[in-house]
């Protein structure tokens, strides 16, 4: 190893890292402190003498109470969760089958199909939301959770396919061949031998897909209209601002509660998430 003097370690390592950590986490701290601060403290001039913005001595839960009593926040939370779980399930199912086919089977146009799935991965939702809104309306899906459950897989499937395809390629072909010699069918070998080995890959793809669906905004904004049908991000934006007035305490309480489920899922599966994240770009 390269030997370093202590002061150098401070200047080149501890101080920059501390700045990174504070910069990254401060907005979340600010969310929390705003959510528990009473309104009287929240809207006080920034030059007030007794202003102590970084903490509060009178924490309150009134913003959380308002959130549950005056808005349909619990509905939003449930909608977001429901839509994220179902669309992740659909995407994993499609991604597993397609990933296996592209990694293992020989068929005409395999290369072209793989490339086109990769290209759809790179198509951003903002390119398609206007025609899609029209199509959703024609299919009579507007303002239903199905509008999102069916469209979220468009950006989840390509990435899961890509990730799982890479994963399948690392599993030795011999395993499958052994099973086939022992009498398993091609389909049976895929389901009973290969899929169980791919569980870590499936978990990575699933966690990543779940966070992506939880995060999605523009489709949910365009396709949903009634307040109780909305997802958390859209509900917070469209239902908690009355005209020009922002209820910051409530907003931050909503932002905090809307972030916790996805942060929890992430914290339990950090390693899988990181594998999914790095795998999603490398393929």
């Amino acid at each position, binding site marked *: 190893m390269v030997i370093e003097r202590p002061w150098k370690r401070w200047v080149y390592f501890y101080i920059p890292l501390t700045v990174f*950590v504070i910069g990254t986490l401060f907005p979340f701290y600010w969310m929390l402190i705003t959510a528990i601060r009473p309104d009287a403290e929240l809207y006080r001039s920034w030059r007030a003498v007794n202003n102590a913005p970084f903490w509060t001595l009178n924490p309150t839960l009134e913003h959380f109470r308002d959130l549950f009593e005056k808005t349909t926040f619990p509905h939003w939370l449930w909608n977001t969760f429901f839509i994220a779980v179902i669309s992740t399930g659909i995407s994993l199912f499609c*991604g597993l089958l397609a990933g296996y086919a592209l990694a293992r089977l020989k068929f005409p146009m395999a290369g072209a199909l793989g490339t086109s799935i990769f290209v759809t991965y790179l198509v951003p939702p903002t390119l398609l939301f206007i025609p899609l809104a*029209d199509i959703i309306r024609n299919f009579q899906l507007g303002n239903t959770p199905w509008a999102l459950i069916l469209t979220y897989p468009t950006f989840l499937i390509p990435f899961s396919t890509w990730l799982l395809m890479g994963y399948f390629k690392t599993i030795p072909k011999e395993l499958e061949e052994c099973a086939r010699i022992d009498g398993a069918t091609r389909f049976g070998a895929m389901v009973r031998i290969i899929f169980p080995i791919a569980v870590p890959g499936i978990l990575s793809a699933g966690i990543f897909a779940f966070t992506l669906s939880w*995060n999605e905004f523009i489709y949910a904004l365009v396709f949903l209209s009634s307040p109780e049908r909305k997802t958390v991000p859209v509900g917070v934006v469209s239902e908690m601002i009355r005209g020009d007035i922002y209820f910051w305490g409530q907003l931050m309480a909503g932002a905090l509660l809307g972030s916790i489920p996805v942060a929890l899922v992430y914290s339990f599966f950090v390693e899988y998430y990181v594998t999914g994240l790095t795998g999603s770009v490398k393929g």
Partner: protein
Amino acid sequence: MKKPIAGGTNGAVVVALPHPRTGQTRRLTRFLENERLLAGVLLAPTVLLLGTFIAYPFVSGVWLALSDTSVGNVGHFVGLRNFAKAWDDSIFQQAFRNTFFYTFWATIFKLALGMWLALLLNRSFRGKRLVRASMLLPFIIPTVLSTFAWRWMFDPTFSVLNWLLFKTGFIVTKIPFLSDGVYGMWCAIAVNTWRGMPFFAITLLAGLQTINPDLHEAASLDGANGWQRFWHVTWPLLKPVTLVVVVFSIIQTFSDFQLIYVLTGGGPANATHLLATYAYQIGVATGLLGEGAAISLFMLPVLFIVVWVQLRYLRRLEGA
């Protein structure tokens, strides 16, 4: 009575199975033994979903862009009029320039800071796993929600950043974070950098971890200093990963919507619109579907070039 084993594999398989199957499942199994047919079955759900909700909307979007469709009005073909109209529109021109400006600077910052953070995280220290996990939070938390926190931090009257800068003596009057177009754009770039930097850092870190430490040792024995070791050892080995990450980030930043929508709404006075937010305003808020679709299609050439670079690069990797 002896059954031939060789050549009669199919029959042997059925006999070997504990449960006799019905004729139907046997036919299905045989059907799935064919590689091409199995591939067709496995790919069908994916092709169906992507075809219905990507390929079809894409074609329909091109048609919309060439028509004067609006909400409640069936459109007629108008040729390139929507594109020409957008091109002459000063707000569109502003949004077009903004999109490039925003993408360029945000990508530069994300790359530089992400690389720095990756290099820091690549060292061993206590609490490393916790620090690494918490660094990804901005990327996990829904962008809309964290952008609200930033909007509150940039609030014209109650900004904590103004308070901090004032108390530490850097400023004497408030900075108009979001009420001025130029400041607003830079604020958006800052928030985008904050959100996207962890993605760079973690992916580059994964790349860094594949680099053999012996290389660094050898270079330092040869008298290379820290900067030279980075430039001549780390960077060349990290270039492939970096290219891929940059491509992904460019696509996401170039087509960004939610951050601007929440932070500034395109204001003040349309100064911070991007192509996506302007397309939303025209296509959805105003209801001019044709013109909105045309505006979002202006993203296509850039995305096309980026995707092309990426594909060419992947081919080269496979060829090597």
